């Protein structure tokens, strides 16, 4: 493992996002940094006042957002309302940028024009995920659970509103699985092929980190110091299966990311420990790296074996494995 670049932002790293060899590091407050291909600090974009939201690359430019209710992208500033924006996300085909603000999901096309979004939703948008196979469909979570919407329709096309509240959501790239991290120490997994929900409880803490592998066959969840890997294959997926539990962390797992190139899993905890798991069948071997501050974000390069590691003290490292 070799460090090929490093930079330090003003605050806890909230999110990391790759675009080719450029890496965007978004801190909780202050300027958002973009490292160039050589690992240099290429540019710094203005922050969003009291707090930044998670950034995303959209059409080769970085879209940023925050507690000031603004989205900045490609020289534009969009101020749709006073409510906070916690993150922007780009549809898998790259055609739309979405942002949750209060009870609305704002959607913009590549020209920055408002596209068909959703408004007057039954609950505020805590998080959302694009359908990987259809950029006119999204899953939105918040109070009540998850609801799946198609733009232009007045009712959700699917509901997994289990009555409680969900804070984060991921849609597997294969399109079959949706997972929500809940306000309680649990996750809900939905199998679209069977229209079937699973409620998984028993985590030590609220699940603050989760990720699907690129092929959608594995789901890694935090929820304490142990990482739980749920198999998302076969007819019933995780149902009735004993998951693989990976230990080695000293603190609560705060970040997880699967490499789209190698399938390796990187996990980071609040004590500064990074573990890299390599899977061979049912077995996993691990490498360990100890850093000086808690790990708050991880992101694999889309094509190389580079791992970006963001820390609570604002430091960002790019490691070559």
């Amino acid at each position: 493992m070799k460090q090929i670049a490093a930079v330090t932002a003003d605050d806890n790293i909230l999110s990391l996002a790759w675009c080719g060899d450029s890496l965007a590091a978004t801190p909780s407050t202050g300027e958002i940094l973009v490292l160039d291909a050589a690992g240099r600090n290429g540019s710094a974009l203005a922050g969003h006042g009291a707090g930044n939201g998670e950034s995303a690359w959209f059409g080769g430019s970085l879209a940023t957002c925050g507690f000031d209710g603004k989205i900045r992208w490609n020289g534009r500033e969009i101020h749709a309302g006073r409510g906070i924006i916690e993150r922007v996300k780009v549809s898998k085909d790259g055609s739309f940028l979405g942002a949750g603000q209060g009870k609305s999901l704002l959607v913009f096309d590549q020209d920055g024009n408002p596209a068909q979004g959703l408004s007057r939703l039954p609950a505020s948008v805590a998080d959302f995920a694009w359908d990987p196979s259809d950029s006119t469909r999204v899953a939105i979570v918040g109070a009540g659970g998850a609801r799946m919407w198609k733009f232009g329709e007045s009712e959700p096309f699917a509901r997994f509103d289990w009555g409680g509240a969900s804070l984060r959501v991921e849609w597997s790239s294969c399109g079959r699985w949706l997972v929500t991290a809940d306000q309680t120490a649990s996750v809900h997994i939905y199998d679209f092929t069977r229209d079937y929900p699973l409620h998984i409880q028993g985590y030590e803490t609220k699940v603050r980190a989760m990720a699907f592998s690129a092929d959608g066959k594995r789901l890694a969840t935090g929820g304490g110091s142990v990482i739980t890997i749920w198999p998302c294959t076969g007819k019933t997926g995780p149902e009735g299966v004993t998951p693989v539990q990976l230990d080695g962390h000293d603190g609560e797992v705060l970040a997880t990311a699967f490499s789209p190139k190698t399938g390796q899993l990187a996990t980071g905890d609040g004590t500064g420990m990074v573990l890299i798991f390599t899977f061979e069948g049912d077995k996993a071997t691990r490498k360990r790296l100890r850093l000086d501050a808690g790990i708050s974000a991880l992101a694999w390069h889309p094509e190389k074996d580079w791992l970006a590691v963001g820390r609570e003290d604002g430091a960002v490292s790019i490691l070559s494995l």
Partner: protein
Amino acid sequence: MFSVGSRSNFLTNESCIKPKGGLFSGMDRTPVTILTGFLGAGKTTLLNRILTEEHGLRIAVIENEFGEIGVDHELVINADEEIFEMNNGCICCTVRGDLIRILGNLMKRREKFDHVLIETTGLADPGPVVQTFFADDEMKEKLFVNAVVTLVDAKHILLHLDDSDEAREQIAFADVVLLNKCDLVAPGELDKLEKRIRAMNALAKIHRTTNAGIEIEKVMDVGGFNLDHAMEVNPHFLEEGHHHHHDSHVTSVGIEADGDCDGKKLNEWLSRTVREQGADIFRMKGVFAIKGGLDRIIFQGVHMIMDAANGGPWGDRPRKNTLVFIGRNLDRVALNAGFRACLA
């Protein structure tokens, strides 16, 4: 995992330890002040006063009330209030999702805040706001409720008090009541109004104000449930408790008894009481002498959630028990009898 209304043996001597969290103040946690009150009661005026005064505090403000009068401050965060039900309708598991998400993010910042102010909407139920800092582990670990401050429009509150649950609950939940716009009401009327508020909430500190003018520390430095404060107001609520007031919906029931309690019996009775009546109990506060224990036990609760902490040694003070319930349709006789059955 915390279970509803059945936290076992939290009042026995063995558990007389420093609390990990809850509503009690803690040096390493950030204080949160919750501003409630009907639209027009003066919340934004008070907020502007706090933010413009030279107090040297770094304050984050979460505003649910998007009023016409803007608050000009770099750390004002606007969000719609969002109720999260965590356990299918269980009242004590109702928290505020917007606060959990925003504060979760704010607490990750390297540069921490000295204080968080939450301005609720005029029709907000304070219950879920307070419970957020009790029921969510992360919030409990990093923040504590300094005070629920309720602004009351002295001129107009009587229009709402009889037919608005929210108006009564905002008063019932208060640690501090600012009886505002006093310049618009005759002193005799103010006395009557204050008496009525006192009958609903025997524990709150009531300040009469005009234009929400008050020393900031009376709002920002309340310090959560403070033992000295509890003892200070104790004689008053007991005295008020014997009078009949026409606000039969929301009342305070004060109980005082010399001697020691049986910790096990007290724990069982409190657990049963909140399990059966928690929906109608807004707040509970108390100080107990537990048989065999050298220290005072400070107790506080919101609906069905209870918490206890060590209040330090009794020393030379006479050992006695003090307990206050603030709630709706409380049975004073039954509560007194239930408590007295717990005496050792």
